[in-house]
């Protein structure tokens, strides 16, 4: 790949441009070195940008392109030993890089506030959320503790945290992810900063909650007129919030401009490639079959073709049949570890999978998607129900049946890195199932491994490398190769592409679809990413609190959702289209329901109503 190096030139004529920039960055170069004996390695090179009051600038780019480093450089939060920041960072005219640490501390949290990616880990678990905000307030404004408390509660109300008063004395672990992120926002706004830096503030959240957070930031910005630096890799989010967009590639800014312009006619091939890879919800409207992504070559800028996938094989028996599957996790407590209840993770779930078919399982976090997949493979014991693989029941007692089922059904996990043993060369990891199931000798295993690596686009010469020597996308390919080693009929892909960058995500999706066609694989595709699901699925099942509430052909479910939950899910997905950005979603602030049930709880009876051909919706009776 040719490395592109576009030195950024400030564009003078800009409609959205306000009078004076709040933050002005010039020639910022940030370098790291592991120890004093090593040379400095720049990871951000000569970048520059301005953000004006009331304006939102989005920085996009794939993982590792230097987005976070840029924001941390502005805050001077990088480790003092081992990092070096050069250039000029001016906040309302003041050069931040020249400030003594003491002064800089006042800037942090005072003039510039920051929201981080991980709401779960960014709050101190041992301080009440109220204290944490009051601490920020009192650090910058000289007010008493009672006043700080008042102010904190006011902020909680502002970010629409229910029961603001009581929430003051609550520890973070009692709050849901969305609530925690709202606490983070409240904290950031506590001192009325001039600039808010939001580093991937919604990545870890469910789509429904993501929507709420984005709305909130927008609203507050309108109210206070602060400048916002919004860092994300989600183009949908960019389209939603940003006035202007800056595209980074491996430490360089390759393009910047008004968001609409970037989306409408990005000039740089990388920008276009990035956008092309973004799955857009609704882009498949009217099409019955899944389709690959048409990718853009970042070097040449030429666009690959989209290719429609084949329909599933209808005349053969189902490869996987799940009947009334129920999985519950007992919750024990008390003197004799009495069962005081159970998490009904999967409740009465039934579906079947044809050869060559992709069935997607969607739903919000904790609804039981993974548990379903794990129960099929008996990584978790079911409470009741049956799983048939090639018509044969997978039972607890029959080890051989389980073994052959596990040969036919394989799994690709969400985190490709965690699912590869970091200490074993990838060739050995891929070959392991083959050798362990005694399907052939060492030489055969080697040949097959090489062939599969080739197949998933890796060089067989990489066989002896360790997992950490690969990129995320490559690692996911390794996992796919391993899953294919046993010639399975079904692959359960549990969030198999969720962790990947957009462009790589598209590549891996394409690979999966290709393999499906040539090998006749069936996929159980578990994902919370609706846009990807829309592209790859033949059929879609929507799960809610352990139950399938709607299942049917993809086009039917996406274009004519019947169940109220499905509708809500569809509405919450951000649309990568700047022209639609001012549209409010009107989603209410609502807590996720818990699947915990007391013992003796009998799930309400329900039936499935067929609304159109093969499209079923759950109806309670």
């Amino acid at each position, binding site marked *: 790949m040719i490395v592109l190096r576009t030195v950024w030139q400030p564009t003078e004529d800009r409609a959205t441009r306000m009078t004076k920039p709040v933050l002005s960055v010039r020639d910022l170069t940030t370098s790291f070195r592991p120890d004093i*004996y090593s040379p400095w390695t720049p990871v951000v090179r000569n970048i520059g940008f301005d953000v004006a009051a009331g304006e939102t600038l989005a920085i996009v780019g794939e993982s590792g392109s230097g987005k976070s480093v840029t924001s941390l450089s502005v805050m001077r939060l990088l480790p003092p030993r081992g990092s070096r920041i050069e250039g000029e960072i001016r906040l309302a005219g003041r050069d931040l890089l020249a400030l003594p640490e003491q002064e800089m501390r006042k800037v942090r949290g005072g003039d510039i506030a920051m929201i981080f990616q991980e709401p779960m880990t960014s709050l101190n678990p041992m301080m009440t959320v109220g204290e944490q905000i009051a601490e920020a307030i009192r650090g910058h404004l000289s007010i008493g503790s009672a006043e700080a408390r008042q102010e904190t509660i006011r902020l909680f109300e502002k970010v629409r945290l229910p029961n603001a008063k009581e929430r003051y004395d609550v520890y973070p672990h009692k709050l849901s992810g969305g609530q925690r992120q709202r606490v983070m926002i409240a904290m950031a706004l506590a001192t009325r900063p001039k600039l808010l830096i939001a580093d*991937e503030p919604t990545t870890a959240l469910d789509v429904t909650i993501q929507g709420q957070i984005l709305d909130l930031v927008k609203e507050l910005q309108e109210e206070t007129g602060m400048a916002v630096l919004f860092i994300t890799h989600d183009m949908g989010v960019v389209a939603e919030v940003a006035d202007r967009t800056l595209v980074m590639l491996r430490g360089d800014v390759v393009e910047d401009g008004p968001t609409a312009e970037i989306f409408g006619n990005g000039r740089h091939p990388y920008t276009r490639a990035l956008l092309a890879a973004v799955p857009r919800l609704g882009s498949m409207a009217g099409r019955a079959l899944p389709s690959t992504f048409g990718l853009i070559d970042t070097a040449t800028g030429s666009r690959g073709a989209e290719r429609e996938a084949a329909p599933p094989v209808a005349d053969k028996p189902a490869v996987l049949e799940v009947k009334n599957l129920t999985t519950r996790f007992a919750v024990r407590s008390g003197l004799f570890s009495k069962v005081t209840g159970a998490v009904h993770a999967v409740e009465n779930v039934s579906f079947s999978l044809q050869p060559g078919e992709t069935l997607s399982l969607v739903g919000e976090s904790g609804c039981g998607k993974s548990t379903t997949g794990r129960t099929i493979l008996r990584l978790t014991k079911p409470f009741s129900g049956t799983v048939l693989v090639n018509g044969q029941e997978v039972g607890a007692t029959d080890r051989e049946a389980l073994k052959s089922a596990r040969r036919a059904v394989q799994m690709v996990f969400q*985190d490709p890195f965690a699912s590869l*043993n970091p200490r074993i060369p990838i060739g050995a990891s891929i070959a392991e*199932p083959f050798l362990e*199931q005694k399907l052939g000798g060492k030489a055969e295993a080697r040949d097959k491994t090489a062939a599969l690596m080739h197949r998933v686009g890796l060089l067989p010469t990489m066989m002896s490398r360790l997992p950490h020597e690969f990129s995320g996308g490559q690692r996911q390919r390794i996992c796919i190769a*391993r899953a294919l080693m046993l010639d399975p009929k079904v692959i359960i892909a549990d969030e198999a592409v969720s*962790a990947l*960058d957009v462009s790589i995500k598209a590549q891996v999706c394409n690979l999966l679809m290709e393999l499906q066609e040539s090998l006749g694989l069936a996929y159980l595709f578990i994902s919370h990413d609706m846009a990807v699901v829309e592209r790859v699925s033949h059929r879609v099942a929507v799960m809610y609190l352990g139950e399938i509430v709607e299942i049917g052909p993809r086009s039917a479910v996406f274009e004519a959702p019947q169940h109220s939950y499905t509708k809500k899910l569809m509405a919450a997905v951000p649309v990568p289209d700047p022209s639609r950005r001012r549209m409010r979603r009107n989603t209410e602030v609502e807590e996720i329901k818990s699947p915990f049930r007391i013992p003796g709880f009998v799930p309400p009876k329900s039936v499935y109503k067929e609304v159109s051909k093969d499209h079923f919706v759950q109806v309670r009776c």
Partner: protein
Amino acid sequence: MTNAAQLAPPVRAGIPRFLRRHPTMIAGGTVLAAIALAALLAPFFAGDPATMMPSERLQSPSARYWLGTDHLGRDVFARVVHGARVSLAVGIVVAVSSIAIGVVIGMIAGYFRKADPVIMRVMDALMAIPAILLAIALVAVMRASVGVVMLAIVIPEIPRVVRLVRSVVLSVREAPYVEAAQVGGTRLPVILVRHILPSTVPPLIVQATYICASAIIVESTLSFLGAGVPPETPTWGSMIAQSRMYLPRAPWTVFAPGFALALVVLSVNMLGDGLRDLLDPRMSRRM
């Protein structure tokens, strides 16, 4: 986006650089290696550690006796060097065997839910008996010998290793790569040995250095309390313990082994601390 990078054990990359970054570890390692070498070659250069010549007792260091003689007229230098063999052996044998036994029991406890409570209760009971007292009692039971002293130090260490291994196993057994292996049909023993065992290695290496250092100290303490190795055997601990009365008159009889002991324990600890920093991926992300 992903926190995968944290899990990476960057052991393979750039060993020399780590060495440069961990001067204390290098110092510790070098000193240890030198002492180990001296211990190995002791019979060839150090002289006779056993022969007693009461008429030559408590001689101060001289050209003939580099570190003087003790109360029985034995060559302190020869005894210090030969003592290295026993003291190091005690450290190493105790570390290796307590870890070997602890790993096996810990893996069983961590992986087999049924065995876990039984094993852990027994381990609790073993831990509940103060180590020194157990050692004294064991030595009293089985008569003093280097082997028994080692055993007496190993037994109380085992439960600590078991706990460590068990906790690692408990956390790793649900790791996606273990589940991936299960899905691929990998047999249980293979999963245990190939996928779970290696994760216990980094914390165990560190633990091993602590055990090694404390074993050397405990051995000397046992000698002090009169429950150590046989008086015949030169170990630093028993040398200090036997000579402590002579400290005012013949300080070398105590300081020579004492210095050697402190030096080795210090080196082992420095090595262990260095290894821990080296094996801890978080060190690269510090404030």
